[in-house]
């Protein structure tokens, strides 16, 4: 999959429009300088939008294209291509591909003339989709033709690649339109250049896994420094051999597995050792034990539980609950835990993270954070979700990473126990800002929730408790579902 930097050009400058209004254009400077500051290497494919051209219906920024093409960039240009003459002007300036939007949806005849004149590899039809419906003319008008109809016509002309932009507002909050691209994959052999919603390297990795996505256009995330182009390209190029993990969680109180909704209404769910062994046999990649009594009471029983579970478990074991000091941390490791999750104690004294990382290595330190939605942000909750702090979750998690946390266990207090899906916006907001992995927790209900947490949420592991306890889903079913969606898993089925 190619990562294609995208620049909007107005009056020779790289700009960004707010809500599509020209008067609001924010300038980022000369295209060549912008490309240099973004470290776009020579030979790169580049996506340019001629904003004035798009408004006036004729090529305007031909000089910009000429200069960039001369810098050994493979330029595709879009904006107001309405005739063979317009197309020829762009190609004469050195553009390699032409992105045609309105034409593809409204004038099949002109589209086929363009293909005939310049070859199918030169023409990239662009289709704007809002809530499954094709939009034309700057998103103002609804096209009479459906997505499938347009794609079939495009394919019959010998075109291999289309650019799809999902302009639904909801889509932007959950990232790129993975579902739409999958839908296209099932109905068409066309390759898709995905446009819109990409805010992190994780989004790019998820797009690359779909299979038919041959390119991803990124503009805003690049200009705002959210994506490092070189790192993004390297991550996509590395093979998908690192499996995403499925982690069952045992909430333990007084040596028994218990379960509850939103940390309350707790009932008994069995023996920890039996549960642990069953989960390993079913293909769990790791086990989390959260001692939910420990914050209130002593940790002696918890240590005994960890010891008993570790004795018969041969996958990594993460333990959390009531770890307050380096000594607590050490005792848990000695009892057989591989990694320790710290929560309340770290909030009270963040330096504990650094001390544990220095003493035991960052691989042993997991920051557990319980997040509660508070307007358009999230705040950290403590005491098993019963008490709120005014600590901003995103800032806290970034600080914890800097202090030496090796991974983050992020639980949505709002979603926990509801089986209504993960808080994808929370996962996106946090995972996009961290290099360490995020374990998604709270809300697993359906198979699709697991793939969504990884694909849209950017999680590297997904945790569930009651769902697996009640055998509503098995770990094997979840892994088969992820594998079918192109997400790498450790095969145990």
């Amino acid at each position, binding site marked *: 999959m190619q990562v294609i930097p995208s620049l909007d050009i107005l009056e020779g400058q790289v700009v960004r429009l707010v809500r599509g209004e020209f008067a609001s254009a924010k300038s980022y400077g000369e295209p060549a300088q912008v490309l240099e500051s973004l470290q776009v290497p020579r030979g790169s494919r580049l996506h340019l939008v001629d904003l004035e051209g798009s408004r006036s219906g004729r090529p305007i920024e031909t000089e910009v294209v000429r200069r960039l093409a001369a810098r050994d960039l493979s330029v595709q240009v879009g904006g107001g291509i309405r005739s063979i003459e317009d197309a020829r002007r762009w190609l004469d300036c050195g553009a390699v591909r032409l992105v045609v939007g309105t034409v593809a949806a409204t004038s099949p005849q002109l589209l086929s003339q363009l293909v005939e004149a310049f070859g199918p590899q030169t023409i990239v039809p662009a289709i704007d989709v809002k809530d499954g419906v094709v939009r034309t003319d700057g998103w103002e008008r609804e096209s009479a033709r459906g997505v499938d109809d347009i794609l079939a016509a495009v394919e019959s002309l010998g075109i291999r690649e289309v650019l799809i932009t999902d302009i639904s507002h909801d889509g932007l909050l959950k990232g790129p339109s993975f579902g739409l691209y999958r839908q296209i994959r099932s109905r068409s052999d066309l390759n898709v250049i995905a446009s819109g919603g990409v805010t992190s390297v994780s989004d790019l990795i998820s797009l690359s896994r779909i299979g038919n996505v041959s390119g991803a256009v990124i503009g805003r995330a690049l200009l705002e420094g959210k994506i490092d182009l070189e*790192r993004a390209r*390297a*991550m996509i190029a*590395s*093979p998908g*051999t*690192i*499996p995403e*993990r499925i982690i069952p969680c045992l909430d333990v109180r007084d040596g028994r597995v218990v379960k509850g909704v939103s940390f309350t209404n707790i009932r008994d769910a069995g023996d920890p050792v039996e549960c642990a062994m069953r989960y*390993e046999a079913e293909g769990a*990649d790791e086990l989390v034990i959260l001692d939910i009594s420990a914050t209130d009471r002593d940790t002696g029983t918890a240590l005994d539980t960890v010891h008993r579970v*570790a*004795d018969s478990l*041969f*996958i*990594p074991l993460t333990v959390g609950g009531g770890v307050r000091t380096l000594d607590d941390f050490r005792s848990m490791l*000695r009892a*057989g835990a*591989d990694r320790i999750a710290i929560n309340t104690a770290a909030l009270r004294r963040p330096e504990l993270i650094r001390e544990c990382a220095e003493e035991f*290595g*960052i*691989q042993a330190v997991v920051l557990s954070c319980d997040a509660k939605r508070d307007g358009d942000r999230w705040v950290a909750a403590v005491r098993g979700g019963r008490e709120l702090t005014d600590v901003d979750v995103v800032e806290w998690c970034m600080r914890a990473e800097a202090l030496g946390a*090796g*991974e983050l266990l992020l639980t949505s207090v709002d979603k926990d126990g509801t089986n209504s899906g993960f808080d994808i916006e929370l996962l996106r907001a946090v995972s996009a800002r961290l*290099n*360490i*992995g995020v374990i998604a927790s709270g809300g697993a209900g359906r198979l699709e929730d697991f793939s969504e947490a990884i694909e849209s949420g950017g999680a*590297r592991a997904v945790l569930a408790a009651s769902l697996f306890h009640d055998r509503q889903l098995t770990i094997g079913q979840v892994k088969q579902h992820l594998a079918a969606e192109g997400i*790498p898993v*450790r*095969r*145990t089925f």
Partner: protein
Amino acid sequence: MPTTLIDSPVANVANIARALRSTGSELVVTSDPDAIASARSLVLPGVGSFAAARSWLRQHRIDDAIREAVARGGWLLGICVGHQALFEQSFEMGTTKGLGLLHGDVTRLAGPLPVPQIGWNTVKLTGSSPLFDDIADDSSFYFVNSYAASGVASEIASADYSGPFTAAAQQGRVFGVQFHPEKSSAAGLQLLRNFVACK
């Protein structure tokens, strides 16, 4: 014939002992150089830094004991930093000499993925070895490492983390695995069973 597990303070000895016992092997856990030198089947564990592991081996003359056991025809399995210690040298915090039982160097994992590598990774068999008997190619094993040997002549399995590295090596009766078999579920236990069966 018992398996001798070297009781290093810079290792997760308890977890490896549990896993070895679960294979049915009779186990001796010791740091006595004489017992190690006469062992027929040795496991060298290790976590943390190469230099700390190496310095403990030297201080207690366990490095010479291991060499002697191998010279006498004993079998040896190094795990994680114990695997790294088998090579000629490591560049973790300066240059530290290893046991030199396997040719090659240990270098830092370089690339876009976060270091240390923490988690499961797919292991590809690149040579034939009794260590991987009854283990499918592309099985996953659990890794925790910032350094690794790569492309060494003794490689029998490789993995990829921002680029290929040696996941397992064998030279005669000396084996090393970069991953943690004791945390790698059924595949890991099978590997330990295979090692214990080497006679």
